[in-house]
């Protein structure tokens, strides 16, 4: 069977790639100021964080509340490596690459370690362990001595040319998309989503749940670590108070708003939220800055209720963005036999067979049951 080339499988590479090229050109012309470059760096970091958390939450189906903890490890260790190397090697591209690799790998090791309890724990219990992990990491770095990681003052990291840092950020986004999307669309990705839908069934079909859980946690942590290194380069100083529980929640909001189990959704939500955040930060000052948090909270609650409330099921099926768009373009109806791995329907996959619903289902007398002959044997 020959694989059909489908543009929608590549749309995110095309959009992100085009954005990278456009911004690079704009930058070389000199249109972008420092604040725009900073904004683009932040957007790239948010996309990396949201997509990597989305891998755990949306595809593996486990809730991680410690994503900022992995980022913290990456930021500190990558930042430290960078400042050590910049003394001997200079503060060049190679230093950045090594820092990214070391930061990412050390976070990945932590991710695998936190993935170990994940084998015994599930759902809410795992969520609290990841939360605890994030807090432990924060406490350890906060109490580090001044020579090692700077303690409460934070770690000073080398500066990098602002003109190219955001381009590197977007290139990392592209590489990450390639890795994660190819993983999800492979046999392994289907194994991962099957663990989400039913771990017992997945185990029964011979899927190595242990291996996949560790793999997903480590991979997700790896990219969070890389985002941390980029963050340390972008901010010149790493302070662990930034990587608290609220930051993990912020990333989770991006994933949920974008739609769990959707890579493209995470990208859109991450860019949008980061953009709004940085733009609003200059408008709303002081206590008014909280207005945007209220807005996030309300949007988060409403979106989750809209997507998950059992009572809204009929409403949801009638009015959703996808049917609206397909109506708009007057496309033919979707073929249900077509497997679309990328947009696995999180809300429609029942985690358990609802026995109540099955048992209480009345047999309705319809025309076909009344006249059994009509539909007909030959």
């Amino acid at each position, binding site marked *: 069977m020959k694989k059909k080339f489908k543009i929608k499988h590549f749309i995110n590479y095309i959009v992100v790639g085009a954005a990278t090229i456009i911004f690079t050109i704009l930058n070389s012309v000199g249109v972008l100021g420092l604040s725009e470059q900073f904004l683009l760096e932040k957007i790239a970091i948010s996309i990396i964080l949201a997509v990597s958390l989305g891998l755990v939450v949306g595809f593996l189906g486990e809730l991680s509340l410690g994503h900022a903890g992995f980022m913290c490890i990456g930021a500190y260790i990558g930042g430290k490596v960078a400042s050590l190397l910049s003394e001997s090697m200079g503060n060049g591209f190679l230093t950045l690459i090594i820092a990214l690799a070391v930061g990412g790998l050390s976070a990945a090791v932590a991710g695998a370690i936190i993935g170990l309890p994940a084998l015994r724990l599930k759902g*809410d219990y795992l969520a609290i362990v990841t939360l605890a992990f994030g807090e*432990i990491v924060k406490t350890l770095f906060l109490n580090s001595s001044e020579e090692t990681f700077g303690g409460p003052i934070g770690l000073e990291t080398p500066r990098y040319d602002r003109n190219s840092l955001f381009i590197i950020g977007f290139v990392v986004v592209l590489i990450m998309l390639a890795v994660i999307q190819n993983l999800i669309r492979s046999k392994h990705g289907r194994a991962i989503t099957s663990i989400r839908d039913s771990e017992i069934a997945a185990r029964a079909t011979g899927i190595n749940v242990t291996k996949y859980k560790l793999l997903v946690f480590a991979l997700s942590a790896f990219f969070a670590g890389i985002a941390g290194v980029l963050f340390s380069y972008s901010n010149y100083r790493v302070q662990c108070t930034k990587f608290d529980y609220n930051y993990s*929640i912020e990333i989770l909001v991006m994933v949920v708003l974008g739609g769990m189990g959707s890579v493209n959704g995470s990208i859109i939500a991450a860019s949008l939220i980061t953009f709004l955040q940085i733009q609003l930060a200059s408008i709303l000052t002081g*206590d008014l800055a909280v207005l945007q948090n*209220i807005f996030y*909270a309300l949007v988060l609650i409403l979106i*989750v*209720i809209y997507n998950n*409330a059992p*009572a809204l099921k009929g409403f949801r099926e009638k009015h959703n963005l996808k049917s609206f768009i397909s109506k708009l373009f007057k496309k033919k109806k979707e073929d249900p036999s077509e497997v679309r791995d990328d947009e696995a329907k999180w809300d429609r996959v029942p985690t358990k067979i609802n026995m109540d619903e099955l048992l209480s289902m009345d047999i309705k007398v319809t025309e076909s049951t009344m006249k059994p002959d009509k539909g007909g044997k030959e």
Partner: protein
Amino acid sequence: MDFIITFLNGLSLGGVYALIALGYTMVYGIAKMLNFAHGDIIMVGGYVLFVFVGLTGEPILAIILAAFLCMLIGISMEKAAYKPLRGASPLAVLITAIGVSYFLQSLAQIIFGAAPKFVVIADLGTITLGSLVIPVYSIVTLVVSILIMIGLSLFIKFTKTGRAMIAVSEDKAAAQIMGINVNNIITVTFLIGSFLAAIASVFYLLKAPNISPTFGSKPGIKAFTAAVIGGIGSIPGAMLGGFLLGIVEVFSNSVPQIAPYTDAIEFLILIIILLVRPTGILGKKRREKV
């Protein structure tokens, strides 16, 4: 001598943690959800105390009002955010609870500002027993929280509502068939949880009279840890976990070398206990059926 004082302080902090943990554990047992916003009910209670102690100067009245308003917010939170999601995936409910927590914190920050406010409910002073100087608030906290826990246990064991709560936590569908109104029981659970949180906010303010919008998040996370250590869903477990965590925290804080790492130690204990016993010390192991 120091040891006795530290131990007493640990017990009293443990009592407060146990009260909050009871709220977490009861809601988990009955509604099968982690109410992340529970800690923020403490914060609401704190601000109500701040406003009414400032206005009237009468601590008892303020405490009653705080309990009442906390219960009101507890129920409205349940009705508005959690009820529509009954029967949805646990992850969805958990994320909504996080949203509610975020919402309450931000609302408090808009109304009262981010800067901490100073509230003195009452100055209880200390009493001297021989060479021991004991702060009165820790005795009051310990005694009141133990009394509340005994009351709650009796309520659950001997009243019709209490037994209905046990029934719902064991099997929701069967309880419904026996004529128990599950929705009402869940509401009652949120009422009790919020009441306990309000009492906890009083004790917290007696100990350290400062309140800020994130006031509830630390005790919330700590008590949640306590509930999970004890075995979430189990009422004696929450009490045990609360006292255990309180004692560990106070003792760890009393040693200068390890005091900065207290949080890390507590969370490490949580992780280790969960690795050894995945459902906590007193948690019931449920066999998973396909």
